[in-house]
């Protein structure tokens, strides 16, 4: 295998699904990770919600309370106002899911599900649906459509501005998906490229490969720590931008 093949093998999804009587069941590494993360979150959060009196139970309950308060006071209320309280469960789920999917990719033999454009597109579609729902709920169909026309726009410009605004909103949702996908994918590409430095240099001379071992591993460690930060940052950015866009639809003027 050459370098390009190794990189693509590390990054791309692998389908090892089965075909049962003509019906294909797509089992891929990303779907398995996705299901594993969902299952762990469901069971873990259910266990926390039971309010166990053990030390770990109390600690996790306090941690979850702080987390929900952070999402409510740090993300939802400043951007969406009190109207956003209804959607707090969605934002809490979104943040935790994006974060855990990214963190799962740092576990050996697991992949980052959010490094797949289909997953991030599905998440962005959910966020787009929420934005649409907010607009329709708080303004009705006519009011929501009126919100696309900036105040003070001359009448003759409306047929030009309206489609531009609609496309802008669609692009905002696309950007959510592409940003998360690109950040996750590029992080993993950098990680594998840094590891490959050792083998590429080693092919020139074995001593050079041995010499490249320490710097490459140091960089690898640094990048892994950075990936940890990126996981939190991207979860925060995705949730925050969804709340900002939803807030801009709720408070149009």
């Amino acid at each position, binding site marked *: 295998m050459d370098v390009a093949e190794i990189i693509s093998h590390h990054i791309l999804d692998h389908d090892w699904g089965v075909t049962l009587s003509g019906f294909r069941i797509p089992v891929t590494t990303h779907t398995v990770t996705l299901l594993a993360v969902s299952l762990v979150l469901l069971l873990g959060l259910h266990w926390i919600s039971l309010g166990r009196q053990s030390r770990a139970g109390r600690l996790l309950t306090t941690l979850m309370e702080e987390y929900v308060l952070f999402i409510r006071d740090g993300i939802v209320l400043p951007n969406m106002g009190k109207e956003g309280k209804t959607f707090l469960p969605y934002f809490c789920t979104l943040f935790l899911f994006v974060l855990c999917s990214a963190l799962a990719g740092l576990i050996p033999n697991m992949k980052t599900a959010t490094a797949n454009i289909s997953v991030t597109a599905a998440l962005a579609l959910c966020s787009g649906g929420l934005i649409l729902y907010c607009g329709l709920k708080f303004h009705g169909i006519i009011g929501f459509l009126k919100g696309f026309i*900036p105040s003070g726009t001359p009448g003759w410009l409306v047929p030009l501005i309206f489609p531009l605004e609609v496309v802008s909103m669609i692009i*905002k949702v696309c950007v959510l998906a592409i940003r998360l996908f690109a950040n996750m994918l590029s992080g993993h590409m950098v990680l594998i490229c840094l590891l490959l430095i050792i083998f590429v240099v080693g092919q020139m001379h074995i001593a050079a490969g041995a010499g490249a071992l320490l710097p490459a591993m140091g960089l690898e460690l640094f990048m892994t720590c950075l990936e940890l930060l990126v996981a939190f940052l991207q979860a925060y950015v995705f949730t925050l931008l969804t709340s900002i866009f939803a*807030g801009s639809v709720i408070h149009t003027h």
Partner: protein
Amino acid sequence: MLGPFTKQDHWEITTLGMEFAVSEALCTGVGYWLDKRWETFPWCLLAGAAAGFALGLYQIIRAAGKMTKQNINLKKAEQKDGRR
């Protein structure tokens, strides 16, 4: 002169570059697809690229206008309250 931006403004500014790139890529892609369909290469592609550029610019100008307006409203409210 513009005053300090709000936290929301800062986050919106960070998305503007990518919004510009995505509008450009999306419109160019649509142009390319239309070219393939109607065999008009490269006219739809060029028109798509131009439309994408215009759309990206529109988004930036619109965001800047919105932020300026919010800032002016904030300053007016502050003056009304007697805050400086």
